[in-house]
């Protein structure tokens, strides 16, 4: 049977899943981290998720450079379409791996340079428009572009080039400057993706720190610190989806009335990639959770927590896939809007499962993210 996700189902789901985990939490004694299992989990997270994720991103950005070059060489509607398609692919690959917001991604502002979002006061938009209006040649070379504002060299800027006002010029000769600017952005993205991949592929670099926690490790002195970082990826990313990706454009029902939404605050609204990106965030998270074998950190009598987590991931991914079409149209449609309600409700539930149930069960304390000092 194909499930029809709605707010009602969301509530039902909460009711069905909650008791099992709550009972487990209430009756179990304090847990200790499975020291034997942890290094293997960290290694799998690196080898099967992080490195492949950056490799995919690296390839997708290379394809984007190629498509952009072809478009600039011979402008045409099919070439524009191919570039847009390559762009959407980079968005999906980035959204899968952007959940790893630590280490090399935070150095040299790589994250913000790749994706500047949200653009609260349209600062980035204005800067991009200024580059296009003034035909700023320095923005058409990756080397001089990368030292400009983070807002004019990443996915948001490229999306405006491909879909913003005047983008139709890319079909023909009038779009030459715009195209060269887009190409410089694609080269910049490729170079950032390459740096990220290289940093994670370096055998003596961050991957060795992830794989062997210990007293001489520059990142994790013990297994617990490593487990905290790994679970932090999941917890902080679910928070990101809930608070920084969904809520800016849709805030759920307010006083019983559905929020009309703010489609132009949605990430990638111009290219219609909003929900594809949110879906890829969630897919990335579930892949990391499964492929790293995080379930193996759970004591035998608490394995059902992994079942709840996986069930929520699947339901959320399915709901994201079914909010089809441009985000403004989705917000105006009751059925699709109710799926956004479902996502809002169940990301909050998922956060609780990971933070309290999973974190507590694997020995990181009840309320894992509570224990981060400050």
């Amino acid at each position, binding site marked *: 049977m194909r499930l029809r996700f709605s707010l009602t189902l969301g509530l039902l789901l909460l009711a069905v899943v909650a008791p099992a985990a709550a009972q487990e939490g209430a009756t179990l004694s304090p847990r200790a981290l499975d020291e034997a299992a942890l290094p293997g989990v960290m290694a799998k997270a690196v080898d099967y998720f992080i490195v492949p994720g950056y490799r995919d991103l690296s390839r997708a950005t290379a394809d984007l450079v190629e498509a952009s070059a072809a478009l600039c060489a011979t402008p045409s509607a099919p070439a524009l379409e191919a570039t847009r398609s390559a762009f959407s692919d980079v968005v999906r690959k980035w959204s899968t791996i952007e959940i790893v917001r630590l280490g090399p991604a935070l150095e040299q502002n790589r994250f913000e340079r790749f994706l500047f979002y949200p653009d609260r006061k349209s600062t980035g938009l204005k800067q991009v428009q200024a580059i296009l209006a003034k035909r700023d040649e320095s923005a058409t070379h990756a080397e001089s572009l990368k030292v400009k504002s983070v807002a004019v060299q990443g996915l948001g800027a490229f999306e405006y080039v491909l879909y913003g006002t005047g983008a139709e010029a890319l079909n023909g000769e009038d779009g030459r400057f715009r195209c060269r600017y887009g190409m410089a952005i694609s080269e910049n993205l490729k170079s950032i993706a390459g740096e990220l991949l290289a940093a994670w592929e370096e055998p003596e670099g961050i991957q060795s720190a992830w794989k062997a926690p210990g007293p001489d490790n520059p990142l994790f002195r013990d297994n617990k610190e490593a487990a905290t970082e790994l679970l932090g990826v999941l917890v902080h990313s679910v928070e990101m989806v809930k608070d*920084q990706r969904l809520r800016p454009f849709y805030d759920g029902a307010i006083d019983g009335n559905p929020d009309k939404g703010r489609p132009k605050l949605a990430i990638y609204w111009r290219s219609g990639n909003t929900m594809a990106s949110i879906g890829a965030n969630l897919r990335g998270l579930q892949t990391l959770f499964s492929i790293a074998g995080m379930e193996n950190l759970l004591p035998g009598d608490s394995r059902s927590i992994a079942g709840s987590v996986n069930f929520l991931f699947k339901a959320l991914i399915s709901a994201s896939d079914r909010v089809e079409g441009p985000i403004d149209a989705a917000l105006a449609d009751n059925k699709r809007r109710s799926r956004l309600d479902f996502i809002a409700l169940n990301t909050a539930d998922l956060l609780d499962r990971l933070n309290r149930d999973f974190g507590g069960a694997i020995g990181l304390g009840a309320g894992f993210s509570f224990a981060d000092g400050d």
Partner: protein
Amino acid sequence: MNTGTLIDRRSFVKMAGAAWLATLGSRRAFALERSDAVFASTFMAPDGGYGIATLTEEGEIVERTALPARAHGMAFSPVTCRAVAFARRPGTYAMILATDRTAEPVVITAAEGRHFFGHGCFSADGRLLYATENDFSANRGMIGVYDGTRGFARIGEFPTYGIGPHDMTLSADGRTLVIANGGIETHPDFGRTKLNLDHMEPSLTLVDTATGTLIEKHGLPPELKQLSTRHVDIGADGRIWFACQYEGARDDLPPLVGYFAKGERLSFVPLPESTTAALANYVGAIAINRREDLVGLTSPKGNVAVTLDAKTGAVVKEEPVADAAGVAAAKSGFAVSSYDGQFISRRSPVAWDQHIVRLA
């Protein structure tokens, strides 16, 4: 549009459930047995709710007051008998309680474009409340000034002269605010993510309470740029003690505690390597016992509480405390709490947050 603030305010109202609103309206708002209550700390309850508790000298809970969301640091004014709990960064509320039960609790929300960092202090006469805040679009630390005689209305602000301010305290003469600018850039759009770990700017600043002007600023040397100066307290002799959290390589052994007096350069305490390692590059809280001239430190990451002699910097005591959270001066030595409910020798079914304030 300032989405983050709006959202926080909205969720704030949602979270402020009926039970909490009822406590606001009731005369028993903060039925504190003043003779018993010596400490206050914020906590998370087993059901995930948050609150403030007052505790006895032995660590037994006297009274609890519900909070709408997680709080972090607290401050107390013995003159006006007001205690305040600040939302944890990047939170947008603070709740002020009358510990003598003469007034209802007051909740303030951060101004547009600002959020709280989780710490603050009262002026010497208790009339004003100072809060460390983030002007996040400019990435600039600010001090919000609130007037207790006008329902804690925000009457002004001035800069902390640094980025990512965290803890703040007042000099004994009440004329100087001592601010720990952790040097870490954050933005509510990115939750608690630290955005500039490879170019941090930690500093300690002294700011004139009367004029808001900078008196002194102490940056850290280049090799210690990743040492976030986060918590401060003042010794019996007026010396300012500060405690740090290191964001650099985990196998480095940076200095974690230091002191200075106005007009002096910063000095770091040369802790034994084993103590530095035990503190796990992360001091979560610092307190001075002025009567005994002792410095108390806790590390939730190192699961340890350390006591230093304030005169010599020597380690007096180092004891394991699982999930060590807050520290405050006790009759003798220090009161230490933990995330798993320990408070001195008592255990309560709550998770204590990172700080304790002394009320008496």
